[in-house]
């Protein structure tokens, strides 16, 4: 069995998991209006880390005098915090690092040549793994917005096949002009705080942040927070369109059903769904169809995009970590921005934090390239 033995989230709402969780319970969002004159004359909504707060936080750690990029600082802060709460050692040959990101150090392309070696996604992974004295080559998953879910599933599989006993899964992405302009060109951005699953939703907000989850075969390596099991996971492809989701949701549903079959958990056992819920018209509609096909209509569902924006390659990891914390706290988080159901299938969108006994949850993600992912997490009683 594979356990999340410690974790961390770094976002505008806080620099560790409990602080982020508390902010979400209070209904606090990181999304606000920003203006970047070099990007556009029009302000935009996004969840972005304040440079000064980040710099101050970074000074409280001991990260040496290496020239870290901002992206790498996000990774370091989340990994260091997660490692401070577990006895898993990163200099152990049984521990591997896995990076989840879509664009890594893409900010370096703004003012530099494409041949800058820092742009290779392996570069930040190697630097961070080396800083923590890892003797192993780190692995990098770059699979659009499914990256975080895919990286956790990879970690689980590598531990199960005996290749490693522990994995540090870390993920981050930044809001850069590159990413902002691309989503803007797709007309995928909302000019208001986003409204997942809502009838008035009109697009997503970008976000930046990082998360880390330390996986281990040994639950006793957890610190004060209880270990959470990763029971099963599956990925699928729509085979329909590279930039639009499936019309039927059948492929996401297929991934969910495969994860259920592997875990032995049934739809009725799931305490809540942490959906992808980007608040674009097509994504949320596809997800609602998938949940309907998998018989999950009555399961409380949330999207955390209204709190964090869409953090791309970090999203699946940030949301999985907070789902694990929800299980520990027996509290389903709410969906910031949601008011009235705006999808064609009945799903139970959670509007207020819901305290109730929880055993299992489902985390899903979908992304460009037609990819889908599903993970089943569960409480651990060891």
């Amino acid at each position: 069995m594979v356990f999340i033995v410690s974790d961390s989230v770094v976002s505008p709402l806080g620099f560790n998991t409990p602080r982020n969780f508390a902010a979400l319970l209070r209904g606090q969002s990181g999304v606000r209006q920003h203006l970047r004159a070099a990007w556009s004359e029009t302000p935009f909504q996004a969840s972005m880390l304040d440079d000064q707060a980040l710099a101050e936080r970074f000074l409280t750690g001991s990260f040496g005098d290496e020239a870290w990029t901002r992206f790498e600082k996000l990774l370091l802060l989340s990994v260091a915090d997660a490692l401070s709460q577990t006895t898993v050692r990163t200099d152990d040959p049984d521990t591997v690092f896995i990076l989840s990101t879509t664009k890594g150090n893409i900010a370096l392309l703004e003012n530099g040549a494409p041949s800058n070696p820092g742009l290779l996604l392996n570069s930040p992974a190697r630097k961070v793994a080396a800083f923590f004295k890892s003797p192993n080559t780190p692995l990098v998953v770059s699979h659009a917005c499914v990256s975080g879910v895919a990286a956790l599933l990879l970690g689980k599989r590598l531990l199960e096949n005996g290749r490693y006993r522990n994995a540090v899964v870390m993920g981050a992405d930044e809001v850069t002009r590159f990413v902002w302009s691309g989503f803007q060109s797709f007309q995928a951005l909302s000019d208001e705080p986003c409204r997942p699953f809502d009838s008035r939703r009109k697009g997503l907000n970008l976000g930046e942040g990082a998360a880390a989850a330390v996986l281990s075969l040994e639950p006793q390596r957890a610190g004060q927070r209880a270990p959470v099991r990763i029971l099963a996971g599956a990925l699928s492809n729509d085979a329909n369109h590279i930039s639009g989701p499936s019309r039927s949701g059948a492929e996401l549903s297929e991934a969910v059903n495969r994860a259920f079959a592997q875990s032995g958990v049934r739809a009725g056992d799931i305490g809540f769904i942490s959906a992808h819920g980007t608040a674009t018209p097509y994504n949320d509609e596809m997800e609602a169809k998938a949940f309907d096909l998998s018989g999950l209509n009555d399961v409380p569902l949330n999207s955390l995009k209204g709190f964090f924006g869409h953090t791309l390659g970090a999203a699946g990891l940030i949301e999985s970590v907070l789902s694990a914390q929800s299980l520990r706290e027996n509290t389903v988080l709410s969906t910031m921005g949601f008011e009235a159901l705006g999808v064609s299938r009945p799903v139970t969108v959670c509007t207020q934090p819901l305290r109730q006994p929880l055993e299992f949850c489902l985390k899903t993600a979908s992304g460009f390239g037609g990819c889908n992912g599903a993970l089943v997490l569960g409480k651990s009683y060891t």
Partner: protein
Amino acid sequence: MNYITSWCRIRQNVVTANGQTVFEDPASALSGFLVNAYRHLQIDYPKFYKMDRLCQLGFLAAEVLLQGRILKEEYPPEAVAVVLANRHSSLDTDARYQESMNGIPSPALFVYTLPNIVIGEICIRHQLKGENTFFVSEQYDIAFLNDYTGQLLEQGAARAVISGWADVFQEQYEAFLYLAGQKQTPGSVIHNRQNVSALYGIVDAGS
């Protein structure tokens, strides 16, 4: 036991299928070579011209790999996985997109600034709906990717896997794909690290 039933390699302007050369175009730069290979193979798929070069390369390698085989009729579509890796992610197109930001950025270009889009293009073309993952590594890590591919097959996450390497950056490029699955065919070899290395190396020695 799982078997490699076919493989394809594209590098140095030569396309090989199962070790046999199917197309050569030594004089062209990468963009021209990819289009010439597409024409030579007599593929009718106009979307090819909209793809970025990483997708064109991976698409061509998958066409040669499958050579008219209809994989979704051999296996359930959701049981066929595609697991690819490369060194440069989508950096070749990222650089183009970055330049285009000085004008009006194009969503048709931006979508290719993710490396897994090549998997999406292969899945659309062949109607494959199984597991997908895109890895980025400094070089083709046969030990890791072979083990992961084997694990997907052995644990039942997939019954067939298109596995390999597809990398493009400026004029540097290389693709090596193989199809591994439960079914044995004439000429197939057992799926293991040694055989993958040998197939990758044999082509290497011959070029």
